């Protein structure tokens, strides 16, 4: 087993991996940029090394600096977390070259899955079902138009190097094709430095369902059930759950077996996720494989009773999987909310800043994976994920009611968060009925917010006055003349003079 693991990441996932290291008696090494000296992951580590300026390219994405920190600390393995270098085959290769074990798949497996067109070719050979389309970059408008006509509109243009919805365009008819192709190419070029674009048939209102797989380095591969990830904004997941309310045991077994075949076809080892699109008739199509731990891995941990990070570490250390497929049993239901520093009044634009107050939920069935603390300033340089709140129950209604209860206890002051969004989703009839697809959240947000309860409005009105009386200094601080949004808390200081 490893003695010391360097975690090449920050935020909640670095803290999550460090917890596993502590539990396993392994020394945890943090790395940090100029912007992260005060970050939680640095305090939670046994050792911490500075790796450079705030810009990720000069710190968390800088391979030589991270390998240098590994060398200085004497770490014998590196856990990449998610994002940053986690899916970078060159990094995995460089780790191998310096004799530090990369906790993840081989560089060769990552290379197959790193390009969506290359992955399609490999999966085609392995007989994996995927969305009808082409498995190579489109050379010309002429070719694109021919392929689109052959498979039928609507079609989806996608960047081969893509992710996160960048370089993606839905095309309803031939007239839109030329400009969509140009836009997709230039966006892909800008985002990934690679303008290669391919094309697939567009599936109407699909669900996005993914299968967790785990493979050791001795040829044993299992699946740990699915996660429903259809609740997305701008192609970014917001909420995930396990199991999916639309997946029957039979469908789970079929998707799981395909996911295992995908992993085997890529010679895959360690934890990975096979993403599928599922249409209304429950046909499922291979979308891509994420060659790393997912943000939403906790929901699988809660329903499977397994610790995926422990298992990742044990697999990387050369151990065999300690169980077989038949031993995997899923129990209960788990739902994760991604708590982002985002402004719900301003189209969910990131809202970094100082956390002046942090009230955190706990109690039965609640897990919180957080990378923040009260008094910390959320830096402007990185992704706005603050924490993940996960509710677990013996069934879906209980998981939902526990999350609703926990959200009541949750509050982050000083910055804006998307916490209020989850209350809305969890209370929505379609969500409660399990009727979700990848367009669900955009539709929900287009509706006006449901009318607030009369009683609670009155309570808020009384509270506004009580705050002005009992906590006036703070109110006066908050008040700024000429603010963009008109506020009149400024009146309160004067009121005090009268009382």
């Amino acid at each position, binding site marked *: 087993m490893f003695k010391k693991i360097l975690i090449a990441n920050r935020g909640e996932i670095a803290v999550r991996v460090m917890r596993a290291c502590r539990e396993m008696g392994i020394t945890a090494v943090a790395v940090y940029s100029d912007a992260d000296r005060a970050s939680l992951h640095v305090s939670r580590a046994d050792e911490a090394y500075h790796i450079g300026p705030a810009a990720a390219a000069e710190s968390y994405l800088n391979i030589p600096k991270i390998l240098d920190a590994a060398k200085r600390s004497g770490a014998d393995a590196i856990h990449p977390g998610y994002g940053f270098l986690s899916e970078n085959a060159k990094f995995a290769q460089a780790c191998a070259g310096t004799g530090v074990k990369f906790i993840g798949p081989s560089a060769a497996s990552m290379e197959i899955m790193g390009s969506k067109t290359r992955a399609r070719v490999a999966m085609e050979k392995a007989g994996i079902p995927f969305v009808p389309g082409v498995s190579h970059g489109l050379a010309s408008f002429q070719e694109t138009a021919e392929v689109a006509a052959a498979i039928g509109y609507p079609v989806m243009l996608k960047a081969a190097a893509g992710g996160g919805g960048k370089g993606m365009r839905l095309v309803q008819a031939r007239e839109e094709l030329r400009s969509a192709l140009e836009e997709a190419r230039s966006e892909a070029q800008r985002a990934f430095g690679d303008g290669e674009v391919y094309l697939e048939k567009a599936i109407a209102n699909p669900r996005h369902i993914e299968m967790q797989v785990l493979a050791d380095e001795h040829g044993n591969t299992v699946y740990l059930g699915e996660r429903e990830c259809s609740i997305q904004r701008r192609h970014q997941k917001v909420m995930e759950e396990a199991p999916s309310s639309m997946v029957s045991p039979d469908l789970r077994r079929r998707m799981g077996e395909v996911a295992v075949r995908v992993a085997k076809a890529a010679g895959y080892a360690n934890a990975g996720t096979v993403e599928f699109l599922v249409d209304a008739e429950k046909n499922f199509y291979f979308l891509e494989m994420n060659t790393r731990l997912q943000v939403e891995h906790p929901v699988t941990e809660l329903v499977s009773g397994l610790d995926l990070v422990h298992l990742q570490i044990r697999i990387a250390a050369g151990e065999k999987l300690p169980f077989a497929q038949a031993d995997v049993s899923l129990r209960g239901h788990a739902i994760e909310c991604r708590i982002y520093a985002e402004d719900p009044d*301003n*189209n969910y*634009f*990131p*809202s*970094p800043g100082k956390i*002046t*107050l942090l*009230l955190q939920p706990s109690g039965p069935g609640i897990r919180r994976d957080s990378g923040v603390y009260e008094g910390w300033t959320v830096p*402007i*340089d*990185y*992704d*706005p994920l603050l924490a993940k709140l996960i509710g677990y129950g013996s069934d879906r209604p209980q998981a939902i009611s526990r999350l*609703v209860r926990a959200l*009541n206890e*949750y*509050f982050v*002051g000083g910055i*804006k968060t998307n916490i*209020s969004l*989850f*209350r809305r989703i969890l209370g929505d009839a379609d969500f409660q009925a399990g009727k979700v697809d990848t367009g669900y959240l955009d539709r929900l947000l287009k509706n006006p917010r449901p009318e*607030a*309860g009369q009683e*609670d*409005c*009155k*309570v*808020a*009105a*009384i*509270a*506004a*006055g*009580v*705050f*002005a*009386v*009992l906590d006036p200094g*703070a*109110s006066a601080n*908050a008040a*700024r*003349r*000429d*603010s*963009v*949004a*008109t*506020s*009149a*808390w*400024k*009146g*309160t200081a*004067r*009121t005090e003079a*009268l*009382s």
Partner: protein
Amino acid sequence: MPMIYDVTIDGKDYRLELERANGGWKCKLDGLEVQMDALLRRPDVLSILIGGRSYEIKRERSAGDTHLWVGSVRYAAELRDPRSLHSRASGRVDEQGPRRLLALMPGKVVRILVEEKSEVDAGQGVLVMEAMKMQNEIKSPKKGMIAKIVAVVGANVNAGDVLAIVE
């Protein structure tokens, strides 16, 4: 002598009268008496008891506005003292005079979309800010002329910093 406030919660107006009496509170909302007890548990967190019901209220403050959370429901809150000339003058009639365009969050100024002395419409983009890899257009709060652009491309700004002035 009660304190009187005009309160707006998510667009609904209330008249609130508050008075501390005998270690407790006298409270009237729109003229109706409310049995209420309140305790500031810590800055920005109130415990309120109304007719035996218990509420935890959290106050969210940011550069431009205030929200109150009753449980996990978030309400936009505005409060004015009707006896204060100052607050009346700075209330909704504020539309008239020059307005400072403030940064709502920390970030970096990446582009300026208009020139000084140019005319802008209400809602027109004035500049673009970036934070956490996302870009956001900062819009003019009113129709008028850009009197001054304070922001500098490439500079980091804090929440509440003045970016431009619209007249």
